[in-house]
């Protein structure tokens, strides 16, 4: 193994040990479930839950995730600040996703605008295979995050999402139920990771864990 490879391995080990606690998975799963429930409530109560749910969830879930990281992960493996290299890569990815999201909203705008006067054939195809496109988009986004963050299980989540949405298209399963299923699988996977993490890194005795001896 070359020196360069050894350094990469060490960097990867440091990064992975900080993100193998399953907390990210649990909160992403919760997000998917809450979003699905919001859509179901939307149908029952005819209130715009679906539209406001993502913003509400980010405002609630993000501070809880940060606090959980501070209370569960940091006391067990200590504190580390990674350099800006990874953050820049992640920022570029998030910016790309934001632009892609804006593009999707614009596309929906086109859908709505052309709804009254008849849609072009390609929009019809997008509509007809909407679930498959969403699944494919999720798989691509999952893979991008997996590549950027170096977390291989995100490839699996992306593939699972694609498989579920594709089968949902052919079996006519409503979108919100698929979200509930995906969220449950991701939470279960996160819970397993969290248990493994807690077993692998028990709390150090006393409060001297992060103090230089």
């Amino acid at each position, binding site marked *: 193994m070359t020196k360069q490879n050894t350094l990469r391995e060490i960097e990867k080990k*440091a990064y992975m040990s900080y993100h193998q606690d399953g907390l990210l998975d649990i909160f992403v799963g919760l997000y998917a479930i809450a979003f699905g429930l919001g859509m179901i409530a939307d149908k029952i109560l005819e209130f715009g839950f679906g539209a406001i749910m993502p913003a509400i969830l980010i405002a609630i879930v993000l501070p809880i995730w940060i606090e959980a990281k501070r209370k569960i992960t940091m006391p067990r*493996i200590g504190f580390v600040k990674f350099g*800006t290299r990874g953050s820049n890569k992640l920022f570029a990815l998030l910016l790309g996703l934001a632009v892609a999201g804006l593009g999707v909203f614009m596309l929906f705008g086109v859908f709505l605008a052309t709804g009254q006067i008849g849609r072009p054939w390609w929009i019809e195809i997008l509509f007809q295979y909407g679930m498959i496109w969403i699944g494919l988009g999720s798989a691509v986004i999952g893979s991008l995050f997996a590549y950027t963050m170096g977390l291989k299980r995100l490839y699996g989540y992306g593939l699972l999402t694609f498989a579920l949405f594709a089968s949902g298209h052919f079996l006519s399963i409503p979108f919100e139920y698929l979200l509930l299923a995906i969220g449950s699988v991701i939470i279960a996977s996160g819970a397993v990771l969290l248990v493994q993490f807690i077993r692998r890194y028990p709390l*150090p005795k006393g409060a001297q864990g992060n103090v*230089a001896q």
Partner: protein
Amino acid sequence: MMHLYVVESADFQFLQHQTGMTPGNLSSHLRKLEDAGYVEVTKEFVDRTPHTALKLTRKGREAFKEYRRNVKRLIEKLPE
């Protein structure tokens, strides 16, 4: 040094997990690196608990780069 080279900063506990060294052993290594001016130790309070952050100084990073260059040159000179 390698473990501090790949991050911006880390605390004692994190380094102990990464290196697998005993607290006494790691502490003695860090003290030597601190004395050489390669590692900077910052003591602060996080959530009302004492927290010791360790990071490589500019001198430490340069020294590690130089060490890498030397090892690389040495390996290149070795016969196949």
